[in-house]
């Protein structure tokens, strides 16, 4: 089935909810509809089901305009799964699934046909609600209810499944189960799926393509990694995010930036020595407290390097997995020369980054204040066979201040201990 939306506009109460939206959905495709609240996603879906009246040739199924279809024909084309379903009346799950057969009833007087019974049983089997077929629908959990509604949609024997934020009221396991089920139907029965989704990461993970709506306009449409990048998310949602790739699936996912503010250029200076993912909280706390932070020496691909990049902190960087070179060590020391305070994170010490400890000793010798933050597991872990532990002792003897956590570090700061400039 090919679904075409061509030049679809919809106005309600003098307000243009949809403006000239055009796109196509191919046979067996899984399209995600995304956009902020009020961007017209649900309206678009309702125009497709004719629940809201759109212009005559705006929605076409295999080039046939939907306004020429009968109610039953349309219900046999699109099956809809809403956000949630509820009723005060004692329907069983089987009753609810049987409602999906309404478009296929030919004779009102006839009782339920064998074909209807078989279609309902098959739909409940596929969607995993056969086990609770005789339970009251109103007593089911949110996830079970959505399964029953999917079964009802399947009993309709539709050519496309339209979902309107089907996971909004589900917990995380329910969300994944729901999306896995829809994907299974999409792949195994090559059922075309159009789903309004709120969760960007869920959409990126499951959809073949994503259509991004904003103020009723189609902002972008394409594969998730084409549509989802920090520029589009910032312009459509007004949120600053970092876009990463899932290391297992290579699906893109977004993460709101961790800092509330960017590193200042004009604050009191602090240099951080860190690595191995130990420096993130320290850098964030310092940036949020208004310091101008520098950091070194970090290998590119170290997660501390990513953190520092997100926080816009100037980095003394070394190539991936390499030992700290003399050149970078020298640059690191020159940064220390510019700052009154050096913070040492509880980074794991190996032969590759031992020079960062030596840099701390350099700072002490140069009369700088050196604060060593202990992590949850204590001080820096030694991977050098005792050499680092011995060096730590000598740092403390030389006057480095030990603190238990980031808050203590900041209290020291607030007292003016660090604000010496």
């Amino acid at each position, binding site marked *: 089935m090919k679904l075409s939306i061509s030049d679809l506009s919809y106005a309600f109460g003098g307000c243009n909810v949809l403006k000239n939206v055009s796109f196509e959905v191919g046979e067996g495709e899984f399209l995600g509809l995304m956009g902020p609240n009020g961007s017209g996603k649900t309206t678009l879906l309702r125009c497709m*089901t004719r*629940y809201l009246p759109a212009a005559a040739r705006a929605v076409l199924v295999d080039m046939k305009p939907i306004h020429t279809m009968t109610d039953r024909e349309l219900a046999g084309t699109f099956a809809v799964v809403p956000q949630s*379903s509820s*009723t005060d009346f004692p329907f069983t799950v089987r009753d609810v699934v049987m409602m999906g057969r309404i*478009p296929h009833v030919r004779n009102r007087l006839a*009782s339920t046909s064998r074909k209807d019974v078989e279609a309902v049983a098959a739909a409940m089997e596929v969607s995993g609600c056969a086990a609770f077929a*005789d339970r009251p629908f109103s007593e089911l959990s949110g996830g079970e209810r959505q399964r029953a509604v999917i079964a009802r949609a399947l009993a309709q024997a539709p050519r496309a499944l339209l979902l309107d934020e089907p996971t909004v009221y589900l917990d995380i396991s329910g969300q994944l189960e729901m999306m896995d089920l829809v994907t299974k139907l999409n792949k195994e029965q090559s059922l075309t799926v159009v789903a309004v989704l709120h969760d960007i990461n869920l959409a990126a993970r499951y959809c073949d393509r994503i259509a991004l709506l904003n103020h009723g306009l189609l902002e972008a449409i394409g594969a998730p990694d084409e549509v989802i990048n920090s520029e589009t998310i910032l312009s459509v949602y007004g949120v600053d995010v970092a876009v990463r790739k899932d290391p297992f699936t290579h699906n893109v996912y977004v993460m709101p930036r961790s800092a509330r503010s960017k590193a200042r250029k004009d604050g009191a200076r602090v240099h951080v020595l860190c690595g191995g993912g130990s420096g993130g909280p320290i850098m964030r706390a310092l940036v949020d407290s208004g310091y101008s932070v520098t950091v070194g020496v970090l290998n590119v691909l170290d997660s501390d390097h990513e953190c520092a990049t997100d926080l816009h902190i100037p980095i003394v960087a070394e190539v991936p997995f390499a030992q700290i070179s003399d050149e970078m060590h020298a640059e690191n020391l020159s940064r220390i020369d510019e700052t009154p305070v050096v913070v040492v994170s509880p980074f794991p010490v190996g032969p590759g980054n031992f020079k960062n400890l030596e840099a701390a000793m350099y700072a002490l010798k140069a009369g700088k204040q050196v604060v060593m933050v202990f992590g949850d597991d204590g001080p820096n872990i030694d991977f050098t066979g005792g050499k680092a532990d011995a060096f730590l002792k000598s740092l403390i003897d030389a006057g480095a201040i030990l603190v238990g956590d980031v808050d203590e570090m900041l209290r020291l700061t607030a007292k003016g201990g660090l604000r010496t400039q």
Partner: protein
Amino acid sequence: MTQEADEASMRGRRPSFFRRNPVLFIFLLGILLLASSFVAVLVGTLGPIGPGFPERISFSDALDAILGREGDAPDYYVSVFRELRMPRVILAGLVGASLACAGTAMQAVFRNPMADPFIIGVSSGAAVGAASAGLLGLTVALGAVAAPALAFVCALVTVMIVYRMGTVKGRVYVDTLLLSGVAMAAFLGAVVSFLIYFAREDYHQLIPWLLGSLAMARWSYVLVISVPATVGILAVFLFGRELNALLLGEETAHNLGANPEFLKKIMLITAALMTAGAVAFCGIIGFVGLIVPHMMRIVVGADHRKLVPAATLFGASFLIWADALSRTVIQGEELPVGIITALCGGPFFLYLLRRSRGMGAMS
């Protein structure tokens, strides 16, 4: 019981016997109706069952009278049974069936188990129509059809007004709906009282009708009322599948191929038609449309394909029994049946209100 145990029993719970065999249950209700009709004909001041006042007659005499056979019994026995008792029982059955079926349809359209022709004010609307037909002398001019015809028009207008009042931007607000129904019922009740007050000579005659009574039953009434009853029951039954879908919301009904706007209109017209037929001859008999569908839902579930036949048959039996009770509960006196149904229905309504509040199902 703890919540876990409760849930465990819920998961393992098999549907009840009649839930699994609804056809058998509906068949048994049919038998109950036949048996009830037969027994109810025998119940009364004059009959083998009842207070036996002024005289108790034998089964065989009663049977002779019903069958119209010549016997030892006096001639007026035949006219009591054949001209009064039999049309009365059949009328009770038709009215009970109509009200129960109208209640079922209204509950589906309003998506609330507390809707009922009486509570929504449709019965009062129909009463205004029927009373004005009688007082304007239309019944003389047009015959027995005038009262139900005018009742239908007024009932239809009432239900449309109440539905409009309770609907804001396509959403049904049940609290508003019930309240506007109550206000409508009170207002139209006053209109009926006003009409009757100025028709002084007919005043006494109209009191039982006002309270809801089957005492005026005649064969001609049975004939007239059987038309809206049959048409209405059939219509509600034939749209049963669509009514099921409507109970999950109008958008869902639309998406399942059931045109909700058309469905709501046709069902409200049907409900008004059945209510008008019932009210035109028997006055306002309240709560039948509330109690009966609710009881049947407990047994057969909410599926209208089963609920409509069950509620229709049981509604008929229910009113036949209520009427038999009204004829015998006070010796030598006849109580309007509307008093009995209201005595049962009022507390029942309060119980439903409490329960639905507890479940948060009202809005």
